[in-house]
């Protein structure tokens, strides 16, 4: 495959992954701190934690690239969840890397990147503890994980913890638009809105959905995005909620049963419903108070579903509950 073609087919997530820290959107506070460190050197051991698709790995690599320049290849060791990371690997591979000599400028260190560090076993993390201390003169660790609680305390104690937060719709939109322009995508506002809605602060998912829609339908509009992402249609949900506010139980139940018939899991239906209720403009009759009641009912129902009661009956019950609170209001 020619290099050009390969580039063409690359996932946009990879193709447009920011190479320098200043290109990263969101979490400005922390990223700007990392920029200063990238200039000055002597980075401490760090843990980046936060939900997926917000730029943790990207930040680490960008930091490594800015710190080490063209030495990146020799001076960085990356191990992610797909690599074998048992105790022996930590003992041998990481240690061997820590011991190898690489000539680096003053204040620069070799970097070991452990992606998805929360999937490492406790034993392996324990073994890491000592290595971190012994080679701190030459090697620094950068750990990326979704839940910092899964990293054992001795490791947390040896690192500076940076907690990344979800990206806001504005930040997502900025980047998605940039990519869409660079790929000269044919899009409309409804399409981008649907992409932001389905991605929920996850940049990776936003770009993947964008690319998938373009590959399948060329045009990015609301319909196509929702078809590709296969989510319960929010417009129908809004309609259902409207029936609930008007206390039309049977009409509302028909819609949610239709979702069920189409094969959406109860979990999917409820997550989408929650997103709709909390973000979308509903009819005038839905006061703040009622909206809160809706969220409460959906939350309680979702809890039951997560506990294992995924039956259609629960969905019907939810609709009935929604109608009931509308009557009270």
């Amino acid at each position, binding site marked *: 495959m020619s290099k050009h073609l390969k580039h063409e087919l690359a996932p946009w997530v990879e193709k447009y992954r920011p190479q320098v820290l200043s290109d990263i959107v969101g979490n400005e506070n922390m990223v700007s701190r990392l920029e200063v460190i990238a200039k000055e050197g002597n980075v401490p051991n760090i843990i980046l934690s936060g939900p997926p698709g917000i730029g943790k790995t990207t930040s680490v690599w960008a930091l490594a690239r800015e710190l080490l320049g063209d030495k990146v290849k020799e001076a960085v060791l990356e191990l992610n969840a797909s690599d074998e990371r048992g105790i022996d690997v930590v003992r041998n591979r990481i*240690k061997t890397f820590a011991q190898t000599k690489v000539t680096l400028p003053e204040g620069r260190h070799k970097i070991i990147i452990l992606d998805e560090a929360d999937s490492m076993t406790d034993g392996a993390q324990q073994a890491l503890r000592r290595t971190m201390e012994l080679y*701190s003169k030459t090697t620094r660790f950068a750990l990326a994980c979704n839940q910092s609680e899964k990293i054992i305390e001795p490791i947390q104690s040896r690192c500076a*913890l940076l*907690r990344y937060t979800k990206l806001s719709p504005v930040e997502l939109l900025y980047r998605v638009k940039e990519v869409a322009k660079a790929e000269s995508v044919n899009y409309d506002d409804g399409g981008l809105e649907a992409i932001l809605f389905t991605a929920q602060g996850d940049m990776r998912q936003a770009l993947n959905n964008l690319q998938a829609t373009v590959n399948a339908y060329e045009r990015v509009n609301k319909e196509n995005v929702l078809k590709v992402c296969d989510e319960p249609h929010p417009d129908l949900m809004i309609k259902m909620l409207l029936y609930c506010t008007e206390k039309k139980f049977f009409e509302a139940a028909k819609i949610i049963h239709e979702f069920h018939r189409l094969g959406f899991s109860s979990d999917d239906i409820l997550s989408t419903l929650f997103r709709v209720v909390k973000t979308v403009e509903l009819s005038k009759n839905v006061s703040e108070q009622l909206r*809160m009641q809706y969220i409460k009912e959906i939350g309680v129902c979702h809890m039951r579903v997560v506990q294992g009661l995924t039956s259609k009956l629960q969905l019907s019950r939810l609709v009935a509950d929604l109608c009931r609170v509308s009557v009270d209001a």
Partner: protein
Amino acid sequence: MNDNDLLTNETAPKRRDELQIHNKKLGEVSNWLKSAFSEDHSAPGVLYLTGPTGSGKSTSVEVLCKEKNIELIDYTPELLHDDFLEYEKHDFSQLIRFLIRRHASLMGGSKKQILFVTELPDQSYQDAERFREEMYEALHRIRHPVIFCLTNDIACWNLNPDKLFTREFIRKADISTITFNPVADTFMKKALIRASNLLPSPLSDTKLNIIKEEARGDLRTAMNMLQMNSVGLNANRRTGMKVICASKANKEEAFHMLGRILYAKRVNPNAPKLTRFSQKRRSSVPIPEPTERTDLENDPSDIITMSSMSSGKLVDFLFENEPVFCPSISNYRRVVDMFSLCDVLAGDWNTARSFPDEYAAQIATRSVMWNNFQGSRPKTMFCIARPTEKDLEKQMTATRNEIRRLPMIGNKHFSSLDAPYRGIIENITDPQRIELFLGRPMEIGWKLGKDRIEELIDGRHYIAYKGRKHPRKARKNATPLVVKQAEEEDETYTIEDSSDDSFDEF
């Protein structure tokens, strides 16, 4: 100073007066070191030194040994090779060989030596029984004193050394124990100031305070945060007030967020059109608040996404501050009702993994914002209170640790040491006193601390809260007795007496 190393290593204390650790603990370690080399011991001593991460365990030992001219021999399993120069699998045999070997001094001469074990083989955590057996054997044959320096305040029970060093084993193998506590705030501050002053550009006091708060008694984390925030030529100016640290990456934003939720400002039709310049004037001339419920100024979802606070924490904060802002009791009831639901949603551990955390935040925020309409507003700047529950929990763990350190029942010092705790236990088991505590006036809160609470309640009631004089009992014991005896009897009967009371009621 070379800037090639971690601050944790670079600023590590070298002398005893630089250690920011309670003198009592240092004394304990120092005494043990002294006794380990005293002549009258037949076998070399063994010390099990534990504590949370970053509490200064190993640093204390290192500094004290240097001071006493003792050589520490580190146990580093990774550097051992077998006959073919291959890495050996790390198991018991290595550790045991290390323990029972005679170590020649690297410094030459007849320097005193101590074996320093900071890491145990993985095998030991999997097979605790065998570890104890083998250790028991090995510890009889050691030629040098040994210190096991391990972190025991660890959430993962699998890796907790307390699982291996059980009480029984410690007693049988005659091991001394010393437990370190998390570093106290005052010490932490001093250590931070010292380290910060070693930097090319010291950090401001406010920043150090934030780091201190965040580190939660872990000195090593504090140093890491310091390094994270200090790199750069003029760290203070460059980032302003912002400090990047563990959980509250944006403390200020969290503060604004809580304010927005609690004040629940609504779009005010009376207000003049807002421009950036008119903002100042607005604050000086108060405009009447809208009398009807208009739209909210800030969308609740936006507020929630703005901060990185977890739902549980958010609910804690709102719960703590809501009473000040709530307009009426019935509104407060409704809000608290929702808080309790949030607690159910967020607190269920078996769904926690797959259940979206955001529900609780949404419900709590929206119900607070709805119910706080036309609520009371603090006249001056209001300081948002931290959840008291956290302080209470902290106090509880402190007391629990204190009690845990008491000697076992039957020990000869038992009675003298547990005496101070009798008062606490009695107050807990006597239903009458609990009633008194629950019926206390509102201004007596947990924050005051146990002693102050007792003092205040005692001052308010005819019946002593903590004292021994129940009116009825005073009559019973009115028969002339030697004072001392009467007191003793009182103490023993307290619990029985009150349980009788409850029987009568049924």
